[in-house]
Every structure is written in structure tokens, then in C-alpha cells.
């Protein structure tokens, strides 16, 4: 990605306002499903538990693989011994569920009372014989999707080195089963090795639903690039092998700590690319990976063009329309970049946290896209103030606002089209194939309201919010 040096630079502001987003411990909701042999234990208060239960709509019903270690007065006043308490709970989990790993999710409370989770875990893990991974996904330091970042950053430490795997396989009674299991097993891939070019090992990081991960791996396979593993893997026992000098690439913009840990602690080389969201982003991502491995990518032009063409019906609905991001899940820049390429304009990108280094390639692509499309650059507002944003939305009257759940109904009632940002967190949006699904979400309010138009129902509240 080359960016013309004289182009107007992106403008970053930090409003440090009162904004709404989900607590990072919400990552439990998708990670426990992704890592099938895991158990997540959130060490916190009723407030944390009630959040998981309610706001996420993830009700902890039958056969849960996550739970709260609810801190009580005795824990907070340090009358009870943290080690003994956690041991009691983890033994119970071991007995009831026998997971391959227990992930402790720290919370604001464990931060405030300075509970030494990282100190306790190694001793307890040795005592009870189940690996314990500690992630401090609290709401004091992180927002929403960054919770996943804290977990993956911690898990990166647990990925085996090649030598661990070899010695293990001799003794491991489950080795046969591992061979049989579906997925990215290096042994499975051997017969097909000829389809791949020769390049150093590549590990991808970011939790995606299995079909999406497979899809991206296949996209790379078409270029002869072999993905030797994903962090996280489907099972904790199948974490990818990582060694010094391996290449790593992220699939999501909120994984900066994981990237840092992989580079600093595991001595991996990070491939900084735009994220594989939208056909433009996916193409750039594949291209960048290929370029690092000295591979000339084949057929990407046609591939991208074909996807754009297949989305034309949706593109017609949104071209020339504006979209305002209030900021919630840190996918904002990638989505904005894609939607600008679709022909939309973006006045403002709110975002809870902006890591300009990890997102550098994405930001460059955003600038480039704005230039190519001849639209002005969005304001990027870190930690926005929702109240001020609503004033700006009133002034700008954007065609669509992508927002957290708390503001959607009130904005709709004021005649503003909205889409929940959280849907983009959970929908399958990565890769060429899924680009259409992003537009399916983006255009839904527009299509819905086109249907309702003529009923004169677009404003359902009498007074406008006071300005």
C-alpha cells in the first residue's frame, strides 16, 4: 500500500467522553464456543455476572462452560484466602466438566483489590493438573472486543514449540485421535504439500467461527500459502505450534496485544496488513501475506471484481449515502474503509481505542480509499462522548448510524436509521465470500424503511431531543 505523502492526513481526536460499549468480559460468550474443550471462569462481582446473563443475551443455561466466581464480602475484605477459594472452585469445575483448560477472566474487582491471579495460577495448575490461563479482561483498561485480545495474548504464551510437540506425540495416547480430527493438522496436510509453495510457517490469530477460518485458509491456499495453525484453535489441546521466526498475521483490528506478545515473547514476525473485511480488505490482506513470502498472487483482480459485481444490487442502495460510526467494537475503521469503497461517505468514526501502530496498514488503506473515491476523510474520535455524538448526528442527519444497543431504539424513534454494531461482531464478515453479508446487514434498515415508507411513521417521538 503506497500512500501519497501529500494527501491530507487522518485526523485523530480523543474526546474522553462518556460512551457506551460492552464490557470486555463479553468475549467469553464467543470464545467458550470457539474453544470447545475450555472452561471460562469470570472472577468478579454480581455486576459482571448479571452483565453476561442479560446484556449479552447469553443466558447461562444447560451445560454451561463458563461461570462466575462470584466474589463475596469475605473475598473483598481479604478475610478469605484467594488461593484456597479458587482451588475449591476449580476442583469443582474439574470434577463436573473436566475441561482441557480453565481460563480465568479477571475483572475490575480483581484489579481493584489486586488479587494476584497470575501468581496463583501456576501453583494451582500444578496442583490440580489442568492448565490455567489468566486474562485480565477488565473494564478499567479495555473495551468490548479487546477482551478477546487479552485472552489470546495469554494463550499465545501456551502455544507449544516444535520440540514440545515431537516428544509429546510419542507418549500421547490421544495422538491417533488427533490425527483423525478434522482441521488444520499438519500431518493431514502433508500429502497435499505440493499444492503449497515453500515458505516459512504462518500462523493466523483471531477467533473466527470455524467455517470463516477455513474459508480464509482456503483463500490463502489458492495462492499456495499454507496456514500452519490458528490461534485460537478449536481445541485448547490443538493450539498451533509457534517458534521463533514464524510469521503471524491478525484477522481483526482489536488484537494489538496478541500481536505484541507474539512478536516480543515468541519472537514471531508480524505481517502488518489491512484486515480481511470486505473484498478490498481481503484482497489487500492476501496480497500482503503473499508479498512477504515472495509469492506473486494469482487471480486476485478477477476475484475481487467478481465479488463487487455480485454485490451490485446492494451497492445501489447505499451509494452516495452517509454512515456514522458511534464506536463500539473496534471494527469501525475496517468497516468504514469497506463502506467508503462501496461508495458511502463517513463523517465520523467513533472508536473506543485506536492502536495506530497495529492498525497502520488499515489506516493507510482508509486514506487511500478516500482518495480513490474522492471523498473527505472521516474524523476519527477515540473514546467518544455519546451525548455530543447525538448532537452531531442531529446536525448531520446521516443515512445510517452504526451504534451500540443502548442508542438504537431512541435514534430510530427520531427517524435515524441504525444498525447495531454488535451484529458485526457476531456475524460472519471476513473474507471474500462474506462481504455480501456485511452489506446484507448495512442495507437491512434501509430496505426495511423503504418498505415502511409512505406510512409516515418515521418519527415516533414528539419532541426532538433538546440541543
Amino acid at each position, binding site marked *: 500500500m503506497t500512500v501519497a505523502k501529500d494527501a491530507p492526513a487522518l485526523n485523530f481526536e480523543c474526546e474522553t467522553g*462518556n460512551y457506551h460499549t460492552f464490557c470486555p468480559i463479553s468475549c467469553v460468550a464467543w470464545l467458550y464456543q470457539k474453544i470447545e474443550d475450555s472452561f471460562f471462569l469470570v472472577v*468478579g462481582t454480581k455486576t459482571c455476572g448479571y452483565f453476561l446473563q*442479560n446484556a449479552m443475551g447469553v443466558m447461562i443455561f*444447560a451445560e454451561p462452560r463458563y*461461570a462466575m466466581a*462470584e466474589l463475596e464480602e469475605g473475598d473483598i475484605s481479604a478475610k478469605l484466602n484467594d488461593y484456597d477459594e479458587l482451588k475449591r472452585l476449580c476442583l469443582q469445575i474439574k470434577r463436573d466438566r473436566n475441561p482441557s483448560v480453565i481460563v480465568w477472566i479477571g475483572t475490575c474487582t480483581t484489579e481493584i483489590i489486586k488479587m494476584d491471579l497470575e501468581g496463583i495460577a501456576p501453583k494451582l495448575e500444578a496442583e490440580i493438573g489442568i492448565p490455567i490461563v489468566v486474562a485480565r479482561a477488565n473494564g478499567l483498561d479495555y473495551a468490548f472486543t479487546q477482551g478477546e485480545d487479552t485472552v489470546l495474548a495469554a494463550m499465545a504464551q501456551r502455544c507449544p514449540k516444535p520440540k514440545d510437540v515431537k516428544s509429546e506425540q510419542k507418549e500421547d495416547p490421544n495422538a491417533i485421535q488427533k490425527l483423525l480430527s478434522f482441521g488444520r493438522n499438519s500431518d493431514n496436510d502433508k500429502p497435499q504439500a505440493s499444492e503449497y509453495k515453500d515458505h516459512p510457517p504462518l500462523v493466523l490469530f483471531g477467533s473466527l467461527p470455524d467455517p470463516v477460518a477455513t474459508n480464509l485458509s482456503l483463500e490463502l491456499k489458492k495462492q499456495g500459502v499454507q496456514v500452519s495453525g490458528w490461534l485460537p484453535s478449536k481445541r485448547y489441546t490443538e493450539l498451533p505450534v509457534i517458534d521463533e521466526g514464524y510469521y503471524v498475521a491478525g484477522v481483526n483490528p482489536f488484537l494489538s496485544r496478541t500481536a505484541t506478545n507474539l512478536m516480543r515473547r515468541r519472537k514471531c514476525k508480524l505481517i502488518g496488513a489491512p484486515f480481511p473485511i470486505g473484498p478490498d480488505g481481503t484482497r489487500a490482506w492476501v496480497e500482503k501475506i503473499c508479498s512477504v513470502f515472495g509469492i506473486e498472487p494469482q487471480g486476485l483482480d478477477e476475484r475481487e471484481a467478481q465479488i463487487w459485481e455480485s454485490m451490485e444490487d446492494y451497492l445501489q442502495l447505499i451509494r452516495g449515502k452517509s454512515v456514522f460510526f458511534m464506536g463500539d467494537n473496534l471494527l469501525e475503521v475496517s468497516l468504514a474503509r469497506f463502506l467508503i469503497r462501496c461508495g458511502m461517505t463517513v463523517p465520523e468514526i467513533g472508536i473506543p481505542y485506536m492502536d495506530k501502530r497495529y492498525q497502520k496498514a488499515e489506516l493507510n488503506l482508509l486514506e487511500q480509499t478516500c482518495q480513490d473515491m474522492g471523498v473527505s476523510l472521516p474524523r476519527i474520535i477515540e473514546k467518544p462522548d455519546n451525548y455530543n455524538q447525538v448532537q452531531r448526528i442531529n446536525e448531520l442527519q446521516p443515512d445510517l448510524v452504526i451504534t451500540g444497543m443502548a442508542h438504537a431504539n431512541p435514534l430510530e424513534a427520531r427517524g435515524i436509521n441504525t444498525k447495531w454494531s454488535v451484529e458485526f461482531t457476531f456475524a460472519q464478515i471476513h473474507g471474500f465470500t462474506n462481504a455480501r453479508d456485511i452489506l446484507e446487514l448495512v442495507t437491512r434498515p434501509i430496505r426495511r424503511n423503504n418498505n415502511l415508507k409512505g406510512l409516515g411513521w418515521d418519527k*415516533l417521538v414528539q419532541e426532538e431531543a433538546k440541543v
Partner: protein
Amino acid sequence: MKLAYWMYAGPAHIGTLRIASSFKRVHAIMHAPLGDDYFNVMRSMLEREQDFTPVTASIVDRKVLARGSQEKVVDNITRKDQEESPDLIVLTPTCTSSILQEDLQNFVDRAQLDSKGDVLLADVNHYRVNELQAADRTLQQIVRFYLEKARKKEQLPEGKTEKPSANIIGISTLGFHNQHDCTELKRLLTDLGIEINAVIPEGATVDQLQDLPKAWFNLVPYRELGLMAAKYLQEEFAMPYVDITPMGVVETARCIRKIQQVVNSQGGEVDYEGYIDHQTRHVSQAAWFSRSIDCQNLTGKKAVVFGDNTHAAAMTKILAREMGIHVVLAGTYCKYDADWFREQVSEYCDEVLISEDNGEVGDAIARIEPAAIFGTQMERHVGKRLNIPCGVIAAPIHIQDFPVGYRPFLGYEGTNQMADLVYNSFTLGMEDHLLEIFGGHDTKEVITKGISAESDLEWAKDALTTLQQVPGFVRGKVKRNTEKFARDRGITQITLEVFYAAKEAVGA
């Protein structure tokens, strides 16, 4: 430390926020970390609320922790005072920020200096009480604050309204079927010739609070919310209160008779017996339902009831007294008020269970194997697992508790709703049973079989695995589309690549 999978009642600050945001022109400032402000999501999503929830989080983050919160909290209060000029700003911590043990009263005092509206610290012990207790407490605190203020300014009203009148206390946002109950209660009181002096907190302004003592009595439909305020009003203003939940035919009549007594003791001359009789026999279908052959089939069937005090107690009585159903176990999660519950239900059931642990409740249900359950969303799920139908009668609230249509639990229309709920719960159980017998349930295996049996196409293992990961309700369609795609191109083996290519081509 406690291993917890589920909570029946939320943390204290939720209760406080429910009260604050039920009032009009009241704003709450929540002193809490970023992720604690999900109350706004709950209110906006569950109630489909059209207005912005009047709750702002004054965010505690690493920096605030290091520097102290006072400036930020005070700034946020005064800022909100200017932006929206509410009558009252309520400050609440969450249990997380209350660990910091800051002098929040001091913050409030400082903010009050620069605010036009009133500023109040929710006086709740976040370590010791739950959502329900905190809501009850906060309502009492606000009522008291404004009555004392009026008394100081000598603005308290004199005397009572001319005609008998009542305050309905305890209707709040995010309450279980509260809105519909409120409509039904108003209708009931109007039928009885009683004026509505005020409904609090939902939709009330704090200015209205000084007029509360004008009413002849207070009606407190829910045991969990409003009793503290009613007791305060009784002590300070000698206002009687009626706290019989008018749920079910018998309890509704009892509630009305109590109202009659309270009204007549203050010089009224009312006789509601004719009304009760007419409603019971002709308006409410519930009494007739109880006598009908349908209900006869329910006689002696076993049921388990679990919920908050109000609804679990009322439901137990309805089932046992009005429908002849055998309530094996009645339980509540309102541990703090267990004695009342025991006293209410012990004569109508075999066992009483007081527990906040959903596991214990689930185990009891599994042991008893009732024909139907009446409980919360949690019991509904337990029921699903055990194949026992469950009618939902109590919070924790869920989007299904905010139906667009009219579904009160209280009053005479409520009795009809109850009859439907009971009847449907049991009969749906029957239907489910029949479906099971005739194999009408869709199962995952069916599609797998379908693929290998009736298809000329061969699915590669990885493609098949991926197909299985497609959500059930569209899987059939995805499968059909993929096979069509393959056939059109003369492909005989569906590999993962083919699968994805098909997805792209079909654009779905």
C-alpha cells in the same frame, strides 16, 4: 467465593437505576467502569424504549483510579444538570466502584453547590442487598426526600381529595409485566369509583411526590417494590396501605374487600360485593374455566412454582385453590423475605424452597417430575431439558415479558391471562408428548441421513462438517443451493471449495 451460573435478581445498582429512570426528568449518574452501563441496553432493548435512557456512566478507568474520581463525578453531575436540567440527579456506584470506598456523599454535596436541580446519593449498601431491595430502598429515599423538602417549605398539601383516591406504588421500568398491570389496576380502581392520585415511580415527576399524602390510601401490588415507601407514608402521614396482590380471582376479591374496608374507615360508604360477584361470575372467564371440563382434566396434576415472592405466592394460591392443581413445591428466590413467603404458601403446597441457587431448584424439579412448572426463564430452560412445560410467571425479565399485546397478570383481565397460561402450559405439554410419539420433532441427524441417502452427490467430509455448522434453520436451504450449484456444473463431489463457491454464487 461462590460458583455461580445464573442470578435471579440483579445487583443493587440495577434496582436504583430502575427507580431513577422510571421517573420523568430524573437523571442517574452511575459511577462505574465502562462495562457496567448495560442497564441502558436492557432498558432500550427490552422495553423498546424510544427515549434515551436517562443514565450516564461516569467512567472509572485506570486514570481515574490513579487520580481519584471526585472531579470527574462532580463534573459529570453538573454537566448533566446543565445539559438536560433534570429535577433530580441520583448518583449511584456499582458494587465494583463501591469497593473503592470513596466519600460519595461528599461528591454529591459539592455537585449540589453548582447544580440547579437536586442531587442525591442513592443510599444503598451495595454489598448487602440485591436489585429488588435496592429498588425498594431508593424509591423510599426519593419519596422521603421530597416530602421532607415540602414539609420544610411548608408546601405539604392539606387534607385528602374529596372523593376516595389512591396512589399506586411500585410500577417501574423493567418490571415484570408492570405496564399492563398498571393499566389493569387503574381500570379496577376506576371501576371502584376510586381516583388515581399518583402512580409512582413510572411516569411520575418528583414534583408530584409532595401530593402523595392527599390520597386516601396506597396500593402496593408487588411485595418487592413499594412497601418501604408505603410504610414510610403510613408512619409519617398516617396513610393506610393495601398490600394484597390482586392476582387470581380469590386474591383480587380479597384485595378489593381490603380497599373497601380502608375507604369506609375514612368515612367512605362503599360496598363492592356486587362488583366482585359480577366480575367473578361474568367478566372474568377464570372462574368459569375452573369449573369447566378442561380444567377438570388438570385436577391433581403436579406442579412446581418458583419465582419472586409476589408471583410465586400468588400463583401457588391460584393453582391450589382455583384450579385444584397439586402444588408439590413452591419456592422463592427472595431469601431476605422468606418468612412472609412461608406463611403465605405453606398451607397450599407440600414443600417450600427458599433458594438463590438455580441448580438447587433444577434438582428439585428433576426429582419431583411435575406435569408443569411455573417459574422464571431459568425454570423454563430446565423444563426444556426435562421435557416439562413451563409457564413464565416472574422476573428476571426477558424480551418475552414485554409483549406488544395486552398481557396483565393482575386484576380481572389478569385472571383470564392466568387461566390461559395454566391451560396452555399443561396442554402444550400434551402436544409435545404427542409430537414425540409420532416423531414430529426435527433433529440434527435427519439432515445427515438425508445427505447420504437421497442424494446423488457426494459430500466430502470437511464440507459436510462445515454444512453441519450452518445454523439449523437455514441448513436445508444451504444444502439444496449447494447441490444445485454442483449439479449445474456437473460436479459430483462437493468439497469445501465447492461449498464456498456455491455460497458466493448464490449470494446467500
